[in-house]
């Protein structure tokens, strides 16, 4: 009994060298064909892997790239949304393509390059601008009709407007605010009222750090990523400057130096650990180990899911306020809103728009996803009924009346992708090195000059 054909062939060739010619060539040809087939299969499957839109079993298919389905906390929520949407629209199937928040921007850019985009995607901040720069986004002007536009907060709609064209609609509304822990403030002998200026904040931080040095007095995102710059942009603005304007660096100014000095102070005095993501502070906040933190509305969800406190207990402990102001008394914030975009290659654009509208403004999605899983505000101009009742709490009200009006859009665009690293490494240098602030500001400026090509 022979074990296998391959060993037999080897034996035969070894015994009869004269047979190598014809048999060997045949085997080579066969292997070559198999190899080509394997490569073709790989190429074909790679080309079709993230597609899948079009029709399936007579239903229109909408592919949806998002990070909600890639995160443990929001996954059940988004799955329920898709199920409900498919129930309401039996002729449409939504295929979710989970991609982590960190990877979604470059994955979608690469998919644009390979001509293999999804139909709809969840984006945030500069991601929308990067994708718009590739020319792959569908203008939504003809889809977002009068009634949709009237139902949405105009400022939020404006965030998705790039060069006079609506390319993204708001899904969740989540600007940065200053969260303050009233319990920790009271324990440090402070009046539990939020500081209005950065100087007042520094005074409060000193008192808290002296009383409880192990508590993180101030949580702020100083990571080297676009989100890090998003969070710091309104802080810089309140000090009177921004690091670049269009393609012109403006980092070597007194206003930016004041901001860098502030960041150096909070780091060197031990009020905040540098190079941490904003999300890092949410978990310790749940056990009252954070006094102040700059974050979107997400803090509530993490604190409540970790410490199981009731709404009333949460509101008793935590409050929010606009980010402190500089000498001019003006407050600024930046959005962390999740937006929805449609790609111009989408095969079922009407179905895609229907799904986007469902997520953005339907009562079901707002109650069961935006409020419940994202802990964010809906983009509705005038919420009514149950939604209005749910939003009737001190945190949501403060976001709506005090924070949203202070929102500015950072200098997003293709330059932002080139510039964020120059700025944030400068911020990190100010926080962690002993180089002079003057030299750091000058270094940021010269790096920006190179990278912005201004």
């Amino acid at each position, binding site marked *: 009994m022979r074990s296998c054909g391959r060993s037999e062939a080897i034996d035969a060739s070894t015994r009869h060298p004269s047979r190598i010619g014809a048999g060997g060539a045949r085997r*080579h040809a066969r*292997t*070559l064909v*198999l*190899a080509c087939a394997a*490569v073709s299969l790989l190429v074909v499957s790679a080309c079709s892997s993230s597609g899948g839109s079009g029709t399936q079993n007579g239903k229109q298919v909408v592919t949806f790239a998002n990070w909600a389905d890639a995160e443990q906390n929001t996954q059940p929520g988004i799955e329920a949304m898709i199920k409900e949407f498919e129930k309401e629209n039996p002729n449409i199937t939504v295929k979710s393509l989970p991609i982590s928040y960190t990877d979604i*921007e*470059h994955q979608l*850019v*690469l998919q644009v*390059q390979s001509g293999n985009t999804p139909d709809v995607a969840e984006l945030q901040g500069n991601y929308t601008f*990067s994708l718009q*720069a*590739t*020319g792959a986004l569908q203008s939504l002007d003809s889809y977002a009709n009068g009634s949709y536009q009237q139902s949405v907060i105009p400022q939020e709609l404006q965030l998705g407007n790039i060069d006079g064209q609506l390319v993204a609609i708001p899904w969740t509304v989540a600007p940065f605010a200053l969260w303050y822990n009233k319990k920790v403030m009271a324990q440090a002998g402070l009046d539990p009222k939020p500081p209005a200026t950065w100087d007042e904040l520094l005074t409060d931080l000193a008192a808290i750090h002296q009383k409880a040095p*192990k508590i993180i007095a101030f949580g702020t995102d100083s*990571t*080297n*990523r*676009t989100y890090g710059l998003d969070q710091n942009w309104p802080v810089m603005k309140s000090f009177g400057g921004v690091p670049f304007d269009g393609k012109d660096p403006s980092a070597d100014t007194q206003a930016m130096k004041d901001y860098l000095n502030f960041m150096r102070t909070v780091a060197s005095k031990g009020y905040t*650990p*540098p*190079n*941490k993501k904003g999300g890092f502070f949410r978990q310790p906040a749940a056990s009252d180990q954070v006094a102040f933190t700059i974050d979107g509305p997400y803090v509530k969800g993490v604190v409540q899911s970790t410490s199981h406190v009731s709404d009333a207990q949460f509101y008793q402990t935590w409050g929010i306020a606009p980010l402190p102001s500089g000498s001019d008394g003006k407050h600024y914030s930046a959005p962390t809103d999740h937006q929805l975009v449609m790609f111009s290659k989408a095969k079922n654009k009407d179905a895609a728009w229907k799904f986007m509208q469902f997520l953005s403004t339907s009562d079901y999605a707002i109650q069961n996803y935006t409020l419940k899983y994202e802990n964010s505000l809906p983009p509705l101009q005038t919420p009514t009924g149950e939604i209005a009742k749910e939003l009737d709490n001190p945190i949501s009200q403060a976001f709506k009346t005090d924070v949203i009006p202070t929102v500015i859009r950072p200098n997003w665009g*293709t330059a932002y*992708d*080139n510039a*964020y*690293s120059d700025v944030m*490494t*400068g911020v*990190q*240098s100010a*926080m*962690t*090195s002993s180089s002079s602030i003057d030299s750091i500001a000058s270094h940021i400026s010269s790096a920006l000059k*190179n*990278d912005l090509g201004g």
Partner: protein
Amino acid sequence: MTLPALLILALVIGYPIVRAVIISFYHYPLLNPQHNFIGADNYRRLVDDPVFWQSLQNTAIYTGVSVVGAMLMGLVLALATENLQGPWRFFRGVLLTPWAVPVIVVAFLFQFMFEDTGGITNDLLLRLHIIDSAIPWLSSSQWSLAAVIIANIWSQAPFFLLIFTAALGGVPVEVTEAARIDRASTWSMIALIKLPYLRSAAVVGALLMIIQNFNNFPLIWAMTEGGPAYSSTTLVIYVYRLAFTSFNLGYASAIGVVWLVLLLMISAAFIRVLRGKTS
């Protein structure tokens, strides 16, 4: 059988290399469909780019210290466990476990251990009165590279333990017996008898690890993302940032080409050593 293999190699390795070399001569932003030929501008920019030089320096320090550190640790462990008998040999198996731990797990493990407050490293050093105040391992420009190197050494020392243990098994018994009869001290036995026999294994292991560490991305990215500032940014981190967060593929490719040339030089040395060993 070689032709299909060569074809596949040409497709999956050759093509990306050739393409990277071509792209390195272009201004090639991924967000913009227009890509202009700019000659050697990307290479000229590289010469004046302080971040490139800092990344190269960090790569050299990270690779050099990691390899030397892991090799010394592996050598000490191999010599210490050389004569384990019976069930005690299980101990050697335990020492090899870090090699089996996925790099990403190592990164998170050390990230927790190096936390400024509450991290076990600072806690231990403070309790032993070795330090007076907590070291900001991952949040200071002075310490971040050291922290990732320590994690890397822990992860890679078992590799050297493995190859040195195997090499020690090849030391002829008659040589060690003769040395013992001549009343050689333990130190003389190690320095004059055993180490010369370990030299080949050390060279091969070191060259392999140099190549691996030169390309080590996940450990550094998960622990520090190359920060604070550029203090722990190595070439691979810098290329990733340029290509996938700034979408500057042309310049990233130019650095990739330089990086490839450096690796080819190291690989050539590796092949030369291997050939010398075989002959």
